[in-house]
């Protein structure tokens, strides 16, 4: 599977407008609504916040992956936000988060869900990918960067 084919341009926010953690998640979730695969916004938000309460999904190297499995999602739903200035998302390394991949999956898709999480983490290991993503200013450019890296 490829992120560049899973990700819809309507579900990409560049640059992110909010800086408060909960509002960042809501901004991404609202972008994800454009996919038409969110069956219940309130329930999806609660699933994401419940997961966040277990431990921040702010990781290392500026990456954050707010994620949850939920019956409020129809299949795999993704949204992406870019924050060139960085947002305090309580990341594991204490740094600011710049790339936000929101991932929701219906309960039956655990295998695919796990694969996508691994794929995002692997992509973000590449410094060149991170730099190009932060330099991109449109959803089209972002998809092009992801596609090129995946090739």
């Amino acid at each position, binding site marked *: *599977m*490829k*992120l560049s*084919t899973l990700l819809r341009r309507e579900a990409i926010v560049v640059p992110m407008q909010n800086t408060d953690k909960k509002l960042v998640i809501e901004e991404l979730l609202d972008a994800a609504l454009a996919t038409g695969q969110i069956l219940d916004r309130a329930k999806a938000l609660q699933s994401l916040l419940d*997961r966040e309460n*277990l*431990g921040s*999904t702010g*990781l*290392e190297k500026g990456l954050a*992956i707010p*994620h949850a499995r939920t019956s409020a999602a129809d299949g795999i739903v993704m949204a992406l936000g870019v924050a060139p200035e960085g947002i305090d998302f309580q990341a*594991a390394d204490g740094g600011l988060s710049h790339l936000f991949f929101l991932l929701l999956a219906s*309960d039956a898709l*655990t*295998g695919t*869900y*796990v*694969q996508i*999480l*691994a*794929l995002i*983490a*692997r*992509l973000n290991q590449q410094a060149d990918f991170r730099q190009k993503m932060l330099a991109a200013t449109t959803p089209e450019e972002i998809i092009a960067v992801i596609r090129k*890296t*995946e*090739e």
Partner: protein
Amino acid sequence: MSAAKYGIVLAKITGAALKAIYVVNIDLLKQLERARIFVKVEELDYERDLEEDGWNYLRDITDLANSKGLSLETELLKGTVHKIAIQKVEEWGADLLIMGELEPGLARQDTFHDETGLIFRKARCSVLMAKDTERIDELFESIT
């Protein structure tokens, strides 16, 4: 499912014994936990769900084999996919390992990309990748 159907077709024609494994990729779950993408409770939760998926898959393909008058020995295992596949090939003295087709658009960063490549390179027996789902379905339906 195509790999299982193709294996059943070949076993029916050749009389070969048929075995199937499903590997829960624990390695990947642990990697995600180490990278802090998962918290421990999620890792355990997903491991349980993947195990359940595995049992469902093995049950389904056993039914397929039985529907063609064949028996199928199955095992659900946990660990690193390529290591377990290769280990079982050696343990059973298998003559042929059949795998399902990967998605044509699989990213190089995808874990399955590596796992499949390693199986192809390291397995001591011949490895066959089942392709063309429609054709395999036709073949499967054609045998009794």
